C-alpha cells in the first residue's frame, strides 16, 4: 500500500497504460516537458519520448482532430484538455467526429480516444477554469463519460478508459488532485461503468460524483450527528448511468438528492431524477431533489464558496426531503 494523491494516481495509471500498450499516446498542451499544469503527466515524456507524449500546438480542435486520425491509424490517444472551459474549441471534433465515427462507419472504425478534463471549481481560479461541462458530453450519443473522485479510482479508471475501444470523456476533479489515498496495485478494480455505494445509510440517498463525493461524505457524517442515516453513492460513470445500485438504494431509503457543481437545469441530476421516478415511483417518499450550481455563469472566485454546493446545502436538501 502506497499513499498517493489523485494527481499521482492518474499519473501512475497513465504510466501503466503506456507500459502495457505501445499504441497509447498522450497529447495536449504542456503535457511533455512541464508534465502538465497539474503535473498529472509528470515524467512521462522523459520515459516514453516525444513521439508518445506530445506537446501539441495550442489549439484544442487540433488536438482532438489529429487524435481522430491517429486512432484511425491504430493508436490510442489520451488527450488532455488543460481546463474544463477550454474544451469548447474542440466541441465539434468531439461531438461530430469522435462520437459519430463508429456509427457512421458501421463499426468499421473504432475511436479508442480518452479525453481527460480537469473540471470543477473551488481553487480560486480566474474565469473558464472552474466549469463542469459534463452534461454536454453525456447528452452526446457515441461518447461515454466518467468522473473519478479519489486517487484509487483515478489510478484504475484511467487505465480502464484507455483500454476501452469507445471514446471516453474522463473528468478529474481538480480541487481533489491533492487528496490522498492508499493504493493497492494488486487489488481488483470495479468495472469502469459501475456506480458504488461509498457510505451505507437508511434514511436518504445522496448521489454525487467527482469533487462532490467528498462533500457528500462529509454531509453524511454531519447528518449522522443529528441522527439521520445518509447513504452516499459515487456515480463514477455518468454515461452510461449505472442505475441498478441507485434504484436499489432509493427503494431502501425512499429519498434521493443528487449533488453536482454543474448548474441544475438539464444537468445530470435532471436525468437521474427522471430515471428514479420512472423506476422507483412507488418507493419514493419525496420528490428527487437536486443540489447544484445556479443557472449563472461560474462566478468570480471570491464568492465561489457560496456558489458551489457545500455540506450545508446538501444537508438542507436532505432535511427538505425528510420533511415531505
Amino acid at each position: 500500500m502506497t499513499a498517493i494523491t489523485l494527481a499521482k494516481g492518474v499519473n501512475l495509471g497513465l504510466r501503466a497504460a503506456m507500459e502495457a500498450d505501445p499504441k497509447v499516446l498522450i497529447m495536449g498542451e504542456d503535457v511533455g516537458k512541464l508534465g502538465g499544469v497539474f503535473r498529472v503527466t509528470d515524467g512521462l515524456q522523459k520515459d516514453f519520448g516525444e513521439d508518445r507524449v506530445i506537446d501539441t500546438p495550442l489549439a484544442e480542435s487540433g488536438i482532438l482532430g489529429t487524435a481522430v486520425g491517429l486512432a484511425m491509424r491504430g493508436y490510442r490517444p489520451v488527450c488532455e484538455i488543460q481546463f474544463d472551459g477550454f474544451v469548447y474549441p474542440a466541441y465539434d471534433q468531439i461531438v461530430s467526429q469522435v462520437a459519430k465515427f463508429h456509427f457512421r462507419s458501421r463499426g468499421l472504425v473504432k475511436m479508442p480516444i480518452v479525453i481527460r478534463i480537469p473540471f470543477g471549481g473551488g481553487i480560486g481560479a480566474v474565469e473558464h477554469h472552474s466549469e463542469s461541462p459534463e452534461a454536454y458530453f453525456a447528452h452526446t450519443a457515441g461518447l461515454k463519460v466518467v468522473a473519478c473522485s479519489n486517487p484509487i479510482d483515478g489510478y484504475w479508471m484511467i487505465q480502464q478508459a484507455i483500454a476501452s475501444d469507445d471514446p471516453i470523456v474522463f473528468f478529474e476533479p481538480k480541487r481533489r488532485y491533492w487528496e490522498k489515498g492508499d493504493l493497492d496495485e494488486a487489488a481488483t478494480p470495479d468495472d469502469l461503468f459501475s456506480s458504488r455505494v461509498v457510505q451505507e445509510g437508511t434514511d436518504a440517498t445522496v448521489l454525487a460524483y467527482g469533487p462532490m463525493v467528498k462533500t457528500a461524505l462529509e454531509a453524511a457524517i454531519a447528518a449522522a450527528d443529528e441522527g439521520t442515516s445518509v447513504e452516499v453513492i459515487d456515480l463514477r460513470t455518468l454515461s452510461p448511468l449505472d442505475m441498478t445500485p441507485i434504484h436499489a438504494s432509493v427503494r431502501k431509503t425512499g429519498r434521493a438528492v443528487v449533488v453536482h457543481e454543474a448548474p441544475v437545469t438539464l444537468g445530470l441530476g435532471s436525468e437521474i431524477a427522471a430515471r428514479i421516478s420512472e423506476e422507483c415511483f412507488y418507493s419514493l417518499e419525496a420528490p428527487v431533489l437536486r443540489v447544484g450550481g445556479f443557472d449563472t455563469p461560474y462566478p468570480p472566485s471570491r464568492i465561489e464558496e457560496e456558489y458551489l454546493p457545500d455540506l450545508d446545502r446538501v444537508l438542507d436538501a436532505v432535511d427538505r426531503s425528510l420533511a415531505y
Partner: protein
Amino acid sequence: MLTRRIDTEATALQRQGELGIWASLLGQEAAQIGSGRALRDQDFAFPTYREHAVAWCRGIDPLHLLGLFRGVDMGGWDPLADKFNLYTIVIGAQTLHATGYAMGLQRDGVIGTGDPDRDAAVIAYFGDGATSQGDVNEAFIWASVFTAPVVFFCQNNQWAISEPIERQSKIPLYQRALGFGFPGLRVDGNDVLAVYAVTQAALQRAREGSGPTFVEAYTYRMGAHTTSDDPTRYRVSEELEHWKARDPIERVKAYLTRNGVADEDYYAAIEQEAEELAVRLRKGCLELPDPSPLGIFDQVYEETTPELQIQREQFAAYLSSFEAAPGTHQGALS
C-alpha cells in the same frame, strides 16, 4: 468521362426523387482524377463530400457513394481498407484527421525509408471555402511543426455555395502556405496531366519525410453546389461560358486526339462503358436496401450500453405491436 457520367446519372436520380441530394463534381474531374491517380495503394485520402472521381481512382464502387445521398447509410465503403475516408460534411474537419493519420505514419516508420512500396503519404481534399475554417489552419500548423507527410489538396472551384473566393481570401490561396512554413503552389486544375505531375511530386516529398505541401488546383464548379442550389441567383452566365471553354474533359480529349493517342473509336468505347455503368448504377441505386430501424442501435458503440439495449428492446416491442395488431396501431400512425 466515366465519372462525369456517374455524376449525370446521380443528378438524374436526385431529380427523380431517388436521392435526397447530390453534390456534383462537374468541372472538377481533372483535379480529382489527376490527383487520385498520383496516389499509391499505401497512401490514404481524406475527401470532403464531392470527391467522387477520387473515390473512383481508389476503386470504390460509385454505388457506395449513392448510399449516403439516398439516405441508406453514411458511406458504404470500408474507409480503412479502401484507404479513402468516409465523406466529411463538416467543412475542413477532415484536414485534421488527415494530419493525425500522417503523424501515425511517422510513428509507424513508413516514411523516408526509400522503399517505394512502403513509404506512404496522406492527401487531404478540401475547397476554397474550407480555407477559412479554423480546423484547416490548425491542420496546417500541426503538419508544419511535426513535418507530417500530408498533401493539402485544395480544389479552388471559385465558389463556396454562393460566396466567391474573394470572400475567403485577399491573396491567392497557395500563398498562404508560406506563412505556415511549407511550400504552396497553384496548378491548372483543369489540366489533368499537370495536376497529376504536381500531386505526384508533392506526395513524393511527403513520403520522403520532407513534410507537407499545399496544392491549389485552380478549377471551377460548373454545376450548382448541390442539387438544392440555384447558382443563377449569385453568378453570371458569362462566367460559366468562360469555364465551359476550359472544360477539363474536352481539353484532355483535344490533347489525346491531337497527339494521335486516342481516336473516335476509343471515345465511343468509353461512352459505351459509361452508359453501361450508368444503367448499373441506376438499377443498383433503386435496389439499395433501406436500413433496419433497429440497426441504428447496434453501431453506436463498440461495447453497447444498458441504456441503449433497453431503448432497442422497447422500440422493438413497439414496432412489433404493429405487426401483431396492424388494424389498431397503423390507424393511429396515419
